[in-house]
């Protein structure tokens, strides 16, 4: 799939950029957020929290968080949530990124 130009209504839309907040000591390491984050923003950390579990941490492309809030909804422990950082304007760069993403060339999506 390839976009040959910016969508005509790109002016009225924006890309939400989220900030993931993790309350590490509440985590029980079930892995739901890591597995089901649609943008694969999370991975298991090497650290231990106070309970002895490995809490999630952000992976390198953390700006991929679009503040969808699924991690917060699927977390059984009230240990993770997202906040809206900014509503970014859509640029051609974003289009390119999205195109790559959903063409499944992105390595992180191989497991799906």
């Amino acid at each position, binding site marked *: 799939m390839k976009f040959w130009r910016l969508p005509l209504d790109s002016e009225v839309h924006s890309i939400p950029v989220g900030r993931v907040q993790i*309350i590490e*000591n*509440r985590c*029980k*390491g*079930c*892995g*739901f957020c890591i*597995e*089901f984050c649609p943008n694969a923003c999370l991975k298991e950390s090497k650290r231990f929290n106070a*309970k002895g*579990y490995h809490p999630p941490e952000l992976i390198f492309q953390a700006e991929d968080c679009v503040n969808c809030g*699924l991690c*917060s*909804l*699927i*977390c*059984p*422990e*009230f*240990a993770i*949530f997202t906040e809206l950082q900014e509503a970014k304007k859509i640029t051609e760069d974003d289009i390119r990124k999205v195109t790559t993403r959903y063409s499944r060339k992105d390595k992180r999506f191989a497991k799906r």
Partner: protein
Amino acid sequence: MKRRLRELQPFDKEAEERAIELGHGLHPDDKYLKPGRIPHIWCPGCGLGVVLTCFIGALRQKQFGVDECAVVSGIGCTGRVAGYLDMDTYHTTHGRAIPFATGLALAKPDTHVAVFSGDGDLFAIGGNHLIHAARRNVNLKVICVNNFNFGMTGGQAGPTTPLDAKTSTTPLGNAEPGFNLPYLAHASGAIYVARWTTFHPRQLVHSIGESFDRTGFTFIEVIAPCPTGYGRPNKLGSGLEEMRYYRDMSEIRYGADPADAEIKLRGKILVGTFEAADRPDFMETYRTQVIARAQAGGKGKGRAA
């Protein structure tokens, strides 16, 4: 007789409050939770926390104030839900959440009374109460978390345990088939019947919201992983692996016939909203017929003793 008792240790309110301040308020959902009650008692990988989060999500979506709602729950892992929510919550006896909630809902008809309980509580010991409340169409929002076993007591077979499934009381395989809960709720007269799994939190939030919009007996079954009690003996893996199983094996079919919604061990899970009907609830009928007649001095008029 003389009594020799231990000295009582008084309740230290200040110490309790200091302990609460430590972790409360870090998460935006904390304002719906009783201070000092998190972490909850549920195992890692348990789906109950997800259902609780979704319930809070629905309250948020409907913009309900916490004083407009009350939650009643029975006994078991799901029974503990009530204790975490910062509203009027009632943790009753085993199986009796629905009759208790019936009394509460009839006494406070403007309050949204939700019943949060497990499959064992609602369909084994409390099965009779559930079918009658559905028949009467009492205004209750029943959320039944189904993990296919009695989790709190250590994974015994329950009314939803599928045929052949292993539990600590069916070590050689279950000889009984499990209940098809949506079918039973539908047949008993529930006006809204849906089923989701913990893999469908968005749909679940929406469904709970829809049930709040209706006046009458609504029933939502949520399939949730129980890695400790049910997953382990049946080799379903961790909570995460059970979630993957829900992802791979659930089929969303809105308006499906609930008769087809039976769940077999490692089988397909039909999810969706199966039933969304309307009929007057108990309180409306009671008001418009019984109370109106009595106060009009009609047939219900009592002789002066």
